């Protein structure tokens, strides 16, 4: 009994130290690159604006790729001739595209862990090993008193208070394999950890934390269609276990859906 506990504590230590060392570097580099990108974009935009204004004034046909600013949208069209209106229509279309790409906070569906090596955490519930990409974890807590709420799905264990946070705890075994959860299995499960999903309020209950590993793209058989099992990012070949797609899992939980998208 003590060995798995000690192993779990080591895993937790590793996880925490990785969070403390890797994250800021990644964040810092990400912030720097973001600032650089913004400066570059501003310069490019200014150049494009200059070019665009010159082109409009000269009544020259403008290519779509060059028309990317708001200013071009706001050009008065009432006093222009037909040729100019055509140009401005193009500008409106292009500008709308540009706005969308700038305004969308999450423009890429591509996960960060879908490139190169990434770290994953293995954990266990009811004899089943599961994996989550480390970068999509919000933290790990030890299980504390959980308050159950009436009328919630069976897999919703309740709300656990952690400092000022309210964590919505998921009975992971019941969510993942509701059909196998008989009374015997239910009584044998001893949850000890809560694995937080990203920055959501959802946490998966886990019996043991097994290990954190570095996986490469070939180590995982990635799912091609997300319609049937959106929560499944892929299968880790070595461990033959499911790798969670955390964002989709959060979405399902927010919708109150069980693993089969049916309330359980």
């Amino acid at each position, binding site marked *: 009994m003590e060995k798995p506990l000690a192993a779990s504590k080591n895993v937790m230590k590793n996880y925490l130290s990785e969070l403390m060392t890797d994250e800021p570097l990644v964040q810092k580099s990400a912030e720097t690159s973001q600032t650089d990108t913004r400066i570059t974009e501003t310069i490019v935009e200014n150049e494009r604006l200059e070019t665009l204004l010159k082109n409009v004034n000269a009544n020259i046909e403008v290519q779509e790729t060059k028309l990317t600013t708001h200013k071009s949208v706001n050009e008065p069209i009432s006093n222009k001739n037909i040729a100019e209106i055509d140009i401005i229509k193009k500008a409106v279309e292009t500008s709308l595209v540009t706005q969308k790409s700038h305004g969308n906070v999450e423009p890429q569906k591509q996960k960060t862990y879908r490139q190169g090596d990434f770290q994953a955490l293995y954990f266990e519930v009811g004899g089943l090993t599961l994996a989550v990409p480390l970068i999509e974890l919000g933290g790990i807590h030890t299980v504390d008193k959980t*308050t159950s709420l009436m009328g919630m*799905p069976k897999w*919703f264990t309740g709300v656990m*208070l952690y400092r000022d946070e309210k964590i919505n705890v998921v009975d992971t075994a019941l969510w993942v394999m509701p059909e196998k959860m008989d009374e015997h299995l239910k009584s044998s499960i001893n949850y000890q950890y809560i694995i937080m999903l990203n920055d959501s309020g959802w946490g998966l209950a886990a019996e043991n934390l097994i290990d954190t590993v570095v996986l490469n793209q070939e180590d995982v058989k990635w799912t091609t269609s997300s319609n049937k099992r959106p929560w499944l990012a892929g299968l880790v070949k070595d461990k033959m276990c499911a790798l969670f797609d955390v964002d989709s899992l959060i979405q399902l939980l927010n919708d109150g859906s069980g693993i089969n998208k049916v309330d359980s």
Partner: protein
Amino acid sequence: MSEERRSSNGKSGVNDEVFQWVTFKLENEIYGINVMQVQEVLRYSEIAPVPGAPNYVLGIINLRGNVVTVIDTRSRFGLETCEVTDNTRVVVIESEKQVIGILVDSVAEVVYLKASEIDDAPNVGNEESAQFIQGVSNRDGELLILVDLDKLLSDDEWDELKQF
């Protein structure tokens, strides 16, 4: 009970009103109901069953000449029934212009909560009883579940209670 709300000097601003909640226990959880809806709290006395009453009605009590219907709160909240103890209370409340009693395991205290201290409950409930939850609040490390008494029964059920 005379003051329902009072201005808050809290840092969250002028709209951060303070509400009073009567807390009671069911099973091991603590629930809160708006103090303004509570008329009185009674010790358990014999509840006379009513033949043909819906299953959420435990029966009726005589409160100073008035008949008050008592709701089976445990079954309403999806909990198993339990034995009556010395702590069992009937909380007489007014909701939807009707006076009813709710049977609870015990009544604890009256607490003050700022509006900013109340959070929404996770909106994943798939059963009717999930609607009863008005919000949740962290009270000294314990989660307080705030109950919307008006939603304790459906419109049809409130109408049905008028027959008693």
